[in-house]
Every structure is written in C-alpha cells, then in structure tokens.
C-alpha cells in the first residue's frame, strides 16, 4: 500500500512536469494550429541555462529559474518570429517540418555549446523531505515543489485566459483569426505572446524535470516533449484543463506501469492507453468534437 502511494506520488510529480510542457503545446496548437515539435528542445535549453546560472555564475536557484524563463521567452519569440511567422499562410506540413528543423537546430547548437557529456543537474530546492508512515513514505522536496508549481501555473493560466484582456484576445484568436483581427486584435502579437508564455513554462518544466531526473543532455527534452505532446492530445489538444489532466494521468500511468507491469514497456503502455482513449473519444478527454460541414 505504501509502495503504491509512493509510485502514485512519483507519477503525479512526473505527470505535473508533463502537464506544464503540455500546456505549452496545447496553447500554441490552439492559437496557431501547429504542432510545435521544437517545444521539447526549449525545455532542454531552459534547463541548460538554469544549470549554467547555478554552476558557473553561482546564482541562487530562484534567480537561475527566472533567468532561464527570461531566456526561453526570448528564444520562443525569436523562433516564432523568424521561423514560423513567415509560414502563417503555408500548408501545415511545411510548418511541421520547419518546427522539426528548429528542433534539430536547438539540439545541435546545444551539443556544440555544452558538449555531449551529460551534466549532473544540482538540486534546486533543498528543504528536507516529508516523511510519513514512520519514514516508509518519503516525499522529496522536488516532488512537492513540482506539484505546487503545477497547481500555481494552472490557476495562473486559467485566470489569465479567463479574466485579462490579453487572455481574451488569445481565446478570440484561437476561435477565429479573421474575426479577431476585425475586432482590432493584433493577431501576430497575440501569437508571439502565446509562444512567450509557452516557452517560459517550458523553462520551468525543464528545471523541474532535471531536478527530479538530474541528467542533462542535448536530447533530454525530446522524449518528455513527445510524451507531453501525447498528454496534450490525450486531454484534448487546445484545452488547458485537458493538458493538465492528460499530463498527470500520463505520468501516473507511466510510473505505475513501470512499477507493476514491465520496466521496459512503461512507454509503450503510455502510448497504448493514448490509442485506446482516442478510439473512444477521438477528440481527447476534454476536446471539443469538430463537426464537419459540407
């Protein structure tokens, strides 16, 4: 029972990281209707920047995270402006391939700058762990931090998209670009803003991911990126609560599957569940089904 609880909590922690990454995917998809495959690599860049800030500049972790967020925000805006904006009218496959090009670029740039050797990520948050059941169940500070950050980000984003003018503009653009433009919304700036928020979240996710799994390499971001994308689809792509639920469920399934079924097949299990869910709910758990009109 205690073991099960431990796996469950680890799963929620991993799932929270997926959820934060998935938020970036889902917001960008909702607004720009593109699969941003470079998102996973922005996570890796964020983690590297936080790592350098802590290891070489010996900044305190909070400042390091803030620095990573600022750098990733800038990176997100630059990527969007240089690579994706010229393709706004192009076929979706062209944008997809460009995103893959950006992903290769970031991975190889990181390889050149930081080398292929894995870096060991330092602990960001060093408050003692919580011990329950006479020390049998240890919840590490990273786990708590991850789950709390996830809740804070979720509440913040819901308030932002629901209450603020910019958030409303974002929802309007994702609903109908043309109509939004007619209402005086600056579509390009709104899309840039979405990329900026998504990339800032990616930086947070990168730091959280690497403080739980402290191995940092140029390819660190790609697998969590794919899984977070899966999580976004699982929850219904374009939906913010969907990304959250999808991410957490995916993390829990992965950890429980690895613990109880097969270590090697943990990933396969995640994808199998995704397939089954999509067969019964083709638009994901919380996605709105799109009616086809003649």
């Amino acid at each position, binding site marked *: 029972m205690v073991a099960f609880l431990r796996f469950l909590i680890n799963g929620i922690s991993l799932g929270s990281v997926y959820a934060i990454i998935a938020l970036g995917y889902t917001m960008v998809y909702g607004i720009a209707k593109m699969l941003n495959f470079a998102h996973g690599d922005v996570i890796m860049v964020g983690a590297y920047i936080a790592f350098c800030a802590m290891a070489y500049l010996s900044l305190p972790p909070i400042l390091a995270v803030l620095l990573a967020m600022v750098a990733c925000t800038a990176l997100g805006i630059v990527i969007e402006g240089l690579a994706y904006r010229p393709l706004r009218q192009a076929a979706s496959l*062209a944008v997809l391939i460009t995103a*893959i090009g950006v992903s290769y*670029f970031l991975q*190889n740039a990181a390889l050149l700058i930081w080398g292929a050797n894995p870096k060991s990520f330092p602990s960001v948050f060093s408050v003692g762990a919580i011990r329950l059941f006479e020390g049998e169940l240890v919840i590490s500070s990273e786990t708590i931090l991850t789950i709390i950050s996830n809740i804070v980000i979720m509440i913040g984003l819901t308030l932002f998209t629901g209450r603020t003018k910019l958030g409303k503009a974002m929802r309007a653009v994702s609903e109908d670009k043309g109509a939004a433009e007619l209402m005086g919304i600056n579509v390009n700036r709104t899309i840039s803003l979405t990329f900026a928020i998504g990339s800032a979240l990616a930086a947070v996710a990168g730091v959280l991911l690497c403080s739980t799994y402290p191995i940092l390499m140029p390819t660190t971001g790609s697998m969590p990126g794919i899984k977070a*994308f899966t999580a976004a689809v699982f929850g219904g792509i374009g939906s913010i609560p969907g990304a959250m639920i999808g991410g957490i469920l995916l993390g829990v399934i992965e950890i429980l599957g690895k613990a109880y079924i097969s270590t090697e097949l943990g990933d*396969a299990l995640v994808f199998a569940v995704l397939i089954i869910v999509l067969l019964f709910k083709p638009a994901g758990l919380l996605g709105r089904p799109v009616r086809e009109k003649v």
Partner: protein
Amino acid sequence: MKLKKSTVNAIISYAIVIAAFLICQWMIATKNMPRTLKGQMIPICVYIVMAVSLNLVVGISGELSLGHAGFMSIGAFSGAIASTYFLNALGLESAIVRLVLSILVGGAFAGVFGVLIGIPVLRLRGDYLAIVTLAFGEIIRNVVNCLYFSVDGMRLHVSFNNPNLPGSIIVNGPAGSKGIKAISTLPVGFVLILFTLFVVLNLVNSRSGRAIMASRDNRIAAEAMGINVTKYKMMAFVTSAVLAGMAGALYGLNFSTFTAAKFKFDTSILVLVFVVLGGIGNIWGSIIAAALLTVLPELLRAFADYRMLIYAIVLILVMLATNNPIIRSLFNGLIRRNRADQAKAGKGGDAQ
C-alpha cells in the same frame, strides 16, 4: 498504338532509374565513386523506397503518418530472422535467394501489422491520426526491445524479456540483431526501387488510386460518390507498410548487427522530411530528396561538428524559401510559361 500518358511517364521513370543504376555500377567498376558514397548506396536505396512509400500515405492519401519507421523496424527484424533461419535451419546457401525471400518476408510481416494498425488509426482524422501513428511507432520500438529470438535446429524460439533461449541467438532484445550475414546488394536495392515505383505508379494511375485521391481531396464528396473511403485509405496505408517493410529488410541485411533504437521517431521524421522537401504527392521529388539528403550529411563532413547544425539551417531555409509567396509566384510563372510552350508545340491540344 498510342500509349497512355501515364504509361509513357512510368516507362520514362523506370528508364531513369535503370540509367542511374548503370551509372552507379560503372562508377563502382571504374573506381570513380568516393568511398563514403559507396557505403551510402544501399541506405540511399532504402530511404528512396521509404520516402516513396510514405508519400503514398502522406501525399496521395493525405494522412500524416509519424510512425513509418515502425514498419521499417518490423521489416528489418523479420527479414533478418528469416534470412538466418533460411541459412541455419533450411541450409539455403544462395545469398541472393535468401535476400529476396527475406525482403518478401519483411514486407509480408509489415503488411500484417499495417492492417492491424490501420484498422484503429484510419478511424481518426488529421493531427489525431498523426499522433496515433507516432504512438504505434514508439510501441513497436519498445516491444521489439523486449523480444528475443533464437534458432535451434529447425525450430525458431521466441521469448519476451527472457534472454535464455536454446540455440544461437538472432535477436537479442535491446542489443538488437546479432550475427546476421550482411547480404544486401546494390542491384537488389535498385530492383526494389523499380518494384516500388511500379506498384506506386500503377496504384496512383488506377481506378483505386483515383478513389484514394478523391477521398483525400474531399472525404464527404467522395463518400457521396459511393467511394468506400476507409477501404481505399487502408489500401494506401497497407501498401505503404509493405513497401516500408521491404525497405527495412534490405536495410537490416546491409548490416551484421542493428538495434531497434535505429528505427525511432527521428527516422520517421527523417523520411517525412524527404517527402515534404521533395514535394508532397510528387514521387520523383521524394526520390531526389531522399537521395540528396541521405548524402548531404556526408558531403557536409568538411564542416565536422557543425554539419548537423548546417543541415538544420538548410532545412529551415528551404521550407521558408519554398513557401515564400514571391519565390513561389516566380516558380509558378516559370512552370506556366513552360506549359504554355508545350501546349503551343502540341497540335492544338484537346478541346476544353
């Protein structure tokens, strides 16, 4: 006798492939071919077949597939197992016969999985379909990583997550295939390209091909015309899977050892890049893009560490340039003028 235009085009295509093969053979015979390129010849054949077969799904059938490497993986492993089994258990000595049989086995297995995967996948649309193909690709890779095969006399042993099998091991879980005789040859690679072209061109120019393209252009209209959309999409998907499996077998038998990690998501993406850069739905575009982009990283070797970075930049710039409205209109203008010249040269053309 007047041949149909599509037949003439197909014959020209076969002729170009055969000419390319003869040039390659001549270059190898006269030792004019650089060593790095010589080693790349069979992978080039493999990726051409992969790209053309993926183009059938992405371009002709209009569904984005992100798991094409999964079929390649199935083909490679079943081909490698078949080849070793034919040699060890059945005593089939002739390498060429074994290679051809193994390629057929690889294609057959990939086809079976194509049907199994196609049934759920083709119920979905658009990006959801894409993510499910991605999921299947990853599942295949994960499962193959846990499989162990060995041959003991006439018997083939399989186990899941248990490396202790009797006889000699062929597939060793995460360590991949083991002790396979590398029997792939360039002529067989070119024959496979010809076969692929034959299948794809005939399919595209047939009644079924037109039904597939009609389903792509407008699903509802196609259904209204009485086309069974799922059946035709399935036809394209399974054909593509079979061809990818054959390419996979050729690829696997080019090495004495390979692992399932070779066929991960990146490989599917690589092939997709060939298809998109070559022009979606354009068969010759896929062939040229696959050949050039397989060689490109080798050509960029002079840039040493920077080559993949340059590859990425080239990829982004090509996508930006081909989708730039100014460059596009320039190209379209050229094509239109060309067509106008051809029309003038013809005998007035058909009544429109």
